[in-house]
């Protein structure tokens, strides 16, 4: 079983839009946006991948096997009142991930392409992933 090399880079929020723009021009596609709630803060992972033959401006030749593994940009957010700028300007498809982050984790994302205003996942308990309602038990 081959384990692919996956790189993670932590960046400050201020440089997020600039880095995402350079990913877009470099021919990377958005793979996922994932929010993880830790004890002291939250982290948001933006994962990108560049498949063979889509090197964009870099002008790399078509290679027969996928050259790059997954590349993740990580942003740290505070636990209370987390806020993020939207990357929909560069990746239109990000609106689904950002709405999900807002509905489940309560992260406010400014400038989403399509804003569901909290109604993408209408749950009985708002932002259900924020509260830990089950302790580790049987």
């Amino acid at each position: 079983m081959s384990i692919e090399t996956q790189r993670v880079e932590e960046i400050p929020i201020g440089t997020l839009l600039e880095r995402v723009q350079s990913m877009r021009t470099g021919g990377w596609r958005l793979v996922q946006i994932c929010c993880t709630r830790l004890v002291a803060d939250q982290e948001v992972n933006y994962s990108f991948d560049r498949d063979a033959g889509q090197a964009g401006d870099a002008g790399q030749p078509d290679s027969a096997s996928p050259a790059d593994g997954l590349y993740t940009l990580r942003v740290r957010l505070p636990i209370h009142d987390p806020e993020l700028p939207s990357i929909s300007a560069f990746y239109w498809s990000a609106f689904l991930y950002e709405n999900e982050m807002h509905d489940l984790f309560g992260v406010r994302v400014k400038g989403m392409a399509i804003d569901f205003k909290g109604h993408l996942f209408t749950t009985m308990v708002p932002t259900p992933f924020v509260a830990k309602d089950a302790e580790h038990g049987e």
Partner: protein
Amino acid sequence: MANRSVIPFGPQHPVLPEPIHLDLVLEDEKVVEAIPKIGFVHRGFEKLVEKMDFNELVYVADRICGICAFIHSLAYCQGIEALIGVEVPARAAALRTIWSELARLSSHLLWLGLMADAFGFESLFMQCFRLREKIVDILEQTTGGRIILGVCRVGGVRRDVEDETLKEIVTRVNDLAALMREAGDVFLRDDSVKHRLVGVGVIPKEEAYALGCVGPVLRASGVRQDTRLRGYAGYGGVDFEPIVETAGDCYARCAVRIGELFQAVDIVTQVAAKVPAGEVAVKVSGYPTGEYHSRCEQPRGEVIHYVKGDGTRYLQRYRVRTPTFANVPALVRMLQGCDLADVPVLILTIDPCISCTER
């Protein structure tokens, strides 16, 4: 001035296999805009990491979806194995590959049936399901379950298949290939079907890549992307070429999936011919630490199981990004400018698995 009206489509609709809601803004039968809404089957799977330890989560992963169940559990087990540092035996990897391809056959045949049903071709729908029943019988015979196989575990697989059974499976699947070719020819050559599929919902290559599509939707637009090329499970030793079409319309997506049916038969034959002897599982000790994005190729595209552990029995985060989640923006783009009568065909052409999308 044209008449503008908003028609709500779904979540209950005779052609929809899964509950998705679309608000279609129409101007005299042409769709101008489509606003999707999902969330009808959100079950909150990812919150179960708080209650269930990493071994029990295999059962949860199996049950995320009712069609692509095995590959979900495979992706999860691969993720945990990467975190713990366990290498599965070669026989287990080969068996996992065979089951993945059988699951792909079953899923594509189901999709072909639903597609035929979407444009009203009932007898073709029934024929596809008749063929699928034979594949599901093989799955039941080897694993015990028809859809939820429950056969993957961290460290290998839970059941072994004897070599004679494998040979018999290869014969059965190859015999089925002739009937599948017949059904596939109706899709690809019949004029009434082509009239509904050709030129409908075209996505050009650059737009498909920029929207983040995965799977057959992307391959039908001319991008050669297939997660199986990365060589996970037993795919490293398999010789296959992803099926790529360039037209980017519904017909191309249909042709890609039909081509993948025969490719799956070929892969099963290749892998079953050289399944190594040995055990099928290794003992796993220790707890997962670190993080890993485990990627597999489901019938609908690339699925990612992101697992993050901190050295205890319970994971910190378990996130599943399913291929339909990545294809929904493409659906919204495709619907702009189409006819109202094409809406069910377009929704089905991305192979929606909304229960996966919402978990």
